[in-house]
């Protein structure tokens, strides 16, 4: 393929302003609502707003965590609590790495 055939595509940045309803989250992550409910129950993701599932609004971090939990479950055969633990530890590790690079002279 020649360089002139390259198409430029733009997407949506899943930033802190993005909010997903339960339905939108299911569509984005290609999962069903029961699975999200289980994830909320387990504390893998938390809705930012809303008291009941129809009112729930999730942020982009929830979307990212759900997808990671799915991949960890599928690829490494960890169960849901295990995936939740791995996600929390990975987040902590990333924070530690950031601190480490910040304190490097």
């Amino acid at each position, binding site marked *: *393929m020649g360089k002139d055939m*390259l*198409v*430029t*595509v*733009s*997407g*949506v*940045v*899943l*930033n802190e*302003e993005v909010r997903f309803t339960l339905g939108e989250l299911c569509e*984005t992550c*290609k999962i069903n609502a029961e699975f999200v409910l289980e994830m909320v129950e387990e504390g893998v993701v938390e809705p930012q707003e809303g008291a009941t599932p129809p009112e729930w609004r999730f942020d*982009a971090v929830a*979307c*990212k965590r759900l*997808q*990671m939990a799915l*991949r*960890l479950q*599928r*690829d*490494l055969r960890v169960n849901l609590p295990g995936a939740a633990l*791995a996600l929390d530890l*990975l987040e902590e590790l*990333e924070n530690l790495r*950031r601190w480490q*690079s*910040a304190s490097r002279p």
Partner: protein
Amino acid sequence: MEFKDYYQVMGIARDASQDEIKRAYRKLARKYHPDVSKEANAEEKFKDLGEAYEVLKDPEKRAAYDRVAAGRRHGERFTPPPDWDVGFDLHGEDIARGFSDFFESLFGGKPGRARWSADSQSWSPRIEGQDQYAKIYISLEDAFHGCTQAIKLGSSAIDRQSAASRKTRTLNVKIPRGVREGQHIRLPGQGSPGAGGGGNGDLFIEIRYRPHRLFRADGGDIVLELPVTPWEAALGETVIVPTLAGKVELTLPANAQAGQKLRLKARGLPGHPPGDQYVILRIVAPPALTEEAKALYRKMAQAMPMNPRKEMGI
């Protein structure tokens, strides 16, 4: 095409037991999983591992592979010998996703959904394309101004015979200004193509920043360590500070100390709200190289005596 030594990929001996193969796979899968590993080529390694395991975990496939593999080395040129699979029933099972040409030439697959998966999926006439995940490394300048960056993706394209073949495609992706590290860009329909009327998957690109010579990012904030002289700090002089948008003037507070953190409001990454830039002062003392400089230091010691180790009780 190149021959792949699946035993070498998995770091096991050719006479490893099925249990050893399983254990090696599980251990390496945890090590190279792209969500867990920090290695730059983790995705590639994880895929190679999945492919090796796909063959070696199945005694029938493994025996057929062993026959082909006898006397061959990793990376050497390879063409499947005719009738190499006589006596083996290898095509009863439908297997998945974007494995290497080497794998496809031996075990020919049908497209599946899960790109990072090592589990096979059963085939159905209508297949939704799989979502794809990729990381892109950009400079802080590109994050600040926005940019367009080419990204190479491996994908299992599907031809009319529904056979999967591994192809590389290049996409030019628009990176909007102000994108933060760790954020995802979702490109609907830019994942792997579907088949039989199934839609394309989506592409998710994770943003990572390359290390910068001067700045580092903390969310939308930018942090800069700024060297200043003792007199600039003591007298509260105005100094020139680099920011991602160019140079700005900053008036130091009088008697500023090393480590003191000053904020340049809204000089960080753009956004709603924009990030700030933090300037952390580092005081650099000039060396006393001449008699005159030494005399000045002695004069300072007399005029403003000070014990910086007071808190240590010394």
